[in-house]
């Protein structure tokens, strides 16, 4: 599912940073435009100013505000984490793949699909994740009560669901070893829950009933997790199993190995040792605590819930530090894991239970009522027409929070737009090929000639190909790694050229001084499914002829002793219809993943199209 590139590939990291900077400039410019427009409308339209002054805001229930701002901050934090340089190349292989590894095949298939989509456009995907999450966070925080913030809740839940499915492999709920301590059922599922709660009509928040329901659901969840934790045979009761750390100790041991401050690593490691020595006692405490907390939350009785909430917060804090190891360290952390959102949701439920607002009036600021001073059209508004006037008036009379919320929603779209556009392309971003082999410089010199024999035994020369654009490479027909990949990249480039491929010849010349017979070129064609491709030519000749061509193209083809494959250059050339070399690519296919293959094909077909336009 991954691109196979290093997380720190400098080309990819630079492209990611550039994308963030460019999109950041757009985001900043948008904010500036909105702010100036808002100030301008207010400044130059007294009516709008009066309408704004007249607008009244309802008091938002404290619990809702807590969830909205709390999860808004979490999204912003997650967005900042997504901006880590390792994310574009690292997320599929370092986060998605390991998360799904223990899940059933169908879950892996789903995650693999998303990972492949990401790895085809790592820069756009990485930047999209940053802006979507920053935008969602800002939207939640800024949105005034009413539809704007409810919509933010829906957007938050929707994005959270996508992340939960594809990024967290359904939170691992289909994998063995599910445990509250390890973050089950996925941190982002709590974001989704919070988003849905924020999306509820505000009237629902004006009764303690909702708080009781939230706490009851959390209580049932805690009891369920306690049962799972206590279930025999799942490895939680043993500190060590056959001399190896048990499940909890192993998790702590693994987390302590993450790059992090030393004191934290020691703390987590020490807890792992404690669990290794007293696994039964540790798990017993966890089971008892979860059961007690769950039972207490289910009651919905304030005096019982309060200490249970305190206990839950203590458990969350301990687990967050000692087992989850804060969740976001190590360069590929995407969120602070589950304990923070669980705690936030529980506190939100408690506040909803105990702090019920008295006022129930909701007034959303919009255009002022007809006949009011604010409704009197100014000269400017009248000129703009009735509809435009209403829009301007609504805009100008909106609060600053509403303007920021509009901007934040736009930030989400700015992030999602390029990614959605990229997904419409079936080919991978050429940046992957460039990240592997660098860019090709445009050239213009006469390509060395050749006179060889194709796989059907027919003579082929540079002159006989005059009038066609030639994509040329050198392949070893018994190569076990690079050459089959390069051949597939040529084939994929041919598909991308579509109708234009009739003007293009895909030419490979044998690069093996030992195995260069027609039998080998034919066997290679059959192996790679190239035998039926009408514009594919795999050329060979006598050793002397081949050596001459290799010299002319500065291609090395060296015999390695002791069972080594022939060492030869991986290069590709784009030669125009007049026989001039226009591009030369270093064409080492790198990791040979689907995305790198597609990227090389895109790079090659793009170059071919450029040269075709020269005809």
């Amino acid at each position, binding site marked *: 599912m991954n691109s196979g590139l290093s997380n720190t590939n400098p080309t990819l990291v630079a492209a990611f940073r550039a994308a963030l900077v460019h999109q950041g400039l757009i985001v900043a410019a948008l904010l500036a435009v909105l702010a100036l427009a808002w100030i301008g409308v207010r400044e130059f339209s007294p009516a709008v100013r009066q309408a704004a002054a007249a607008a009244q805001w309802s008091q938002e229930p404290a619990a809702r505000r807590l969830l909205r701002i709390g999860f808004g901050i979490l999204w912003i934090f997650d967005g900042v984490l997504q901006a880590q340089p390792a994310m574009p190349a690292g997320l599929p292989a370092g986060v998605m793949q390991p998360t799904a590894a223990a899940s059933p095949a169908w879950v892996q298939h789903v995650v693999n699909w998303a990972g492949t989509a990401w790895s085809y456009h790592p820069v756009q995907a990485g930047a999209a994740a940053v802006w979507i999450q920053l935008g969602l966070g800002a939207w939640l925080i800024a949105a005034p009560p009413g539809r704007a913030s409810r919509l933010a809740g829906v957007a938050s839940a929707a994005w959270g669901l996508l992340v939960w499915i594809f990024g967290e492999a359904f939170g691992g709920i289909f994998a063995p070893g599910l445990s509250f301590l390890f973050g089950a059922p996925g941190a982002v599922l709590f974001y989704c829950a919070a988003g849905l709660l924020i999306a509820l009509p505000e009237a629902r928040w004006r009764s303690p009933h909702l708080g009781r329901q939230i706490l009851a659901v959390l209580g049932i969840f805690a009891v369920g997790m306690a049962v799972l934790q206590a279930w025999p045979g799942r490895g939680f009761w043993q500190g060590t199993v056959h001399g190896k750390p048990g499940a909890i100790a192993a998790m702590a041991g693994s987390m302590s190995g993450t790059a992090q401050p030393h004191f934290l690593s020691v703390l987590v490691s020490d807890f792992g040792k404690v669990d290794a020595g007293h696994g039964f006692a540790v798990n017993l405490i966890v089971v008892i605590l979860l059961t007690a907390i769950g039972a207490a939350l289910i009651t919905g009785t304030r005096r019982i819930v309060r200490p249970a909430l305190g206990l839950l917060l203590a458990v969350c804090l301990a687990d967050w530090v000692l087992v989850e190891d804060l969740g976001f360290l190590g360069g590929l952390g995407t969120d602070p894991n589950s304990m923070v959102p669980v705690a936030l949701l529980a506190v939100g439920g408690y506040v909803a239970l105990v702090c019920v607002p008295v006022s129930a009036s909701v007034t959303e600021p919009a255009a002022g009522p007809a006949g009011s001073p604010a409704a009197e059209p100014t000269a400017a508004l009248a000129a703009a027409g009735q509809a435009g006037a209403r829009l301007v008036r609504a805009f100008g009379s909106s609060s600053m929070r509403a303007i920021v919320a509009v901007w934040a929603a736009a930030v989400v779209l700015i992030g999602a737009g390029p990614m959605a556009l990229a997904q419409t392309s079936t080919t991978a971003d050429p940046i992957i090929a460039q990240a592997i082999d660098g860019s090709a410089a445009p050239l213009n010199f006469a390509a060395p000639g050749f006179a060889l024999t194709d796989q059907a035994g027919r003579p082929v020369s540079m002159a006989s190909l005059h009038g066609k654009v030639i994509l040329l490479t050198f392949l070893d027909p*018994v*190569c*076990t*790694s690079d050459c*089959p*990949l390069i051949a597939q990249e040529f084939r994929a480039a041919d598909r991308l050229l579509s109708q234009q491929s009739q003007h293009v010849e895909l030419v490979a010349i044998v690069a*093996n*001084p*030992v*195995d260069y*017979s027609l*039998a*080998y070129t034919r*066997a290679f064609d*059959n*192996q790679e499914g190239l035998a039926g491709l009408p514009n594919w030519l795999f050329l060979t000749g006598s050793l002397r002829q081949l050596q001459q061509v290799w010299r002319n193209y500065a291609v090395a083809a060296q*015999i*390695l*002793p*002791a*069972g*080594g*494959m*022939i*060492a030869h250059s991986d290069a590709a050339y784009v030669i125009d219809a007049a026989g001039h070399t226009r591009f030369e690519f270093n064409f080492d296919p790198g990791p040979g993943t689907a995305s790198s293959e597609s990227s090389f094909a895109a790079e090659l077909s793009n170059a071919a199209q450029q040269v075709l336009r020269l005809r």
Partner: protein
Amino acid sequence: MTLRSALTTAAATLTAAGLTVSVLSGCGSTPASVATRQHTAPAAALPMATSLIAPGGAAWAVAELGGPSARHDNFWELLARPAGATAWTLATPPGVASNGGLILASAGTAVIAGFRPSQLLTFSPLAATADQGKSWSQGNLVSPGLAAVPDALAAGPDDRLLALTDTGTVRLGAHLGASWSLIGSRNSVARSPAGRACGLTSLSAVAFSSAGTPMAGGSCRTPGVVGLFAATSGGWQPTGLALPAALGHVPASVLGLATFSGRTTALLAVGHGPLTGIVAAWSGRTANGGWTFSPVLRTGTTHLLSQSLWLAGAVGIVLAGSHGETLALGPAGQLEALTAHAGTVSMWQLGAGSGSGVTPAGIGAGPASWKQLQTIKIQIPYGSSG
């Protein structure tokens, strides 16, 4: 010095525990009984380390070197000892990555080496030498690639080759593999009356009979039946090889197959799990001469590290739990062992009076003394195929 102590001295990093070197030879022995609880064919996980003696007297050995952890950093090497010489030399044919393995076939005085496919390669390039590995002629190939068994390639009269491929097909090659024709497959053999009687589950070796008839051997579900078939004009026929009565209740698999001097040797695994044994069978010198068997060598669950079928029907196997060793026969018929680790191959010779005469089993367990003959350092082209 025993083989084990010699290896320790040489710091050859041999981690094998309980290495057993066995040589089976002679004819007409009565097989010992091997019990079994299940009538299933033994697993056919065959080592590709092997050796052969070409009719001219040159010895050849295939050994696996390189890094044991990454499959494509393992390189299979071909070593040759020219007729009359005492020293081995590296003779791996050039031009093709040998990571998948090398399969040898003796074609008169010539030797043919087939490269097993590895990574993205799906066919097997062939190389032939008539000058004991000094030079190789290449140009032919087998497609699909050769199966991962030591006797996946055999040479017969009239420059014919016989190949067992990765896909379970049997192909007959003319002109040393310049052209190939499909003569059977696991399915077609299994569907034949002989295949049905055997309950054929897989094919594991090919050879030409003394009459030049293509043969294929495999694993049978039916107890007492040996899956050795001959491709005749009437289809795949049984060759008449059946386990003796004492082994009539156990399943059998063909591990190796070779014909030298008009006589076919079949190396068989019999029994199952801890009761597995190995037995060699030799055809008669005439068509109706019947088969004779060695006693059963009880191997249990210990797997083979190498198997070699030599001239005159001698068979050498190495059992162990670790790194690869190959047995070979020295110029005077004395037993030699090749050990391989990383980029070093060492040759050892069994001292006189230490188990030569080679009746079944156990020369490694006794006071046999091995002396080191030679060490070859090979520059392994790590990473060249990755």
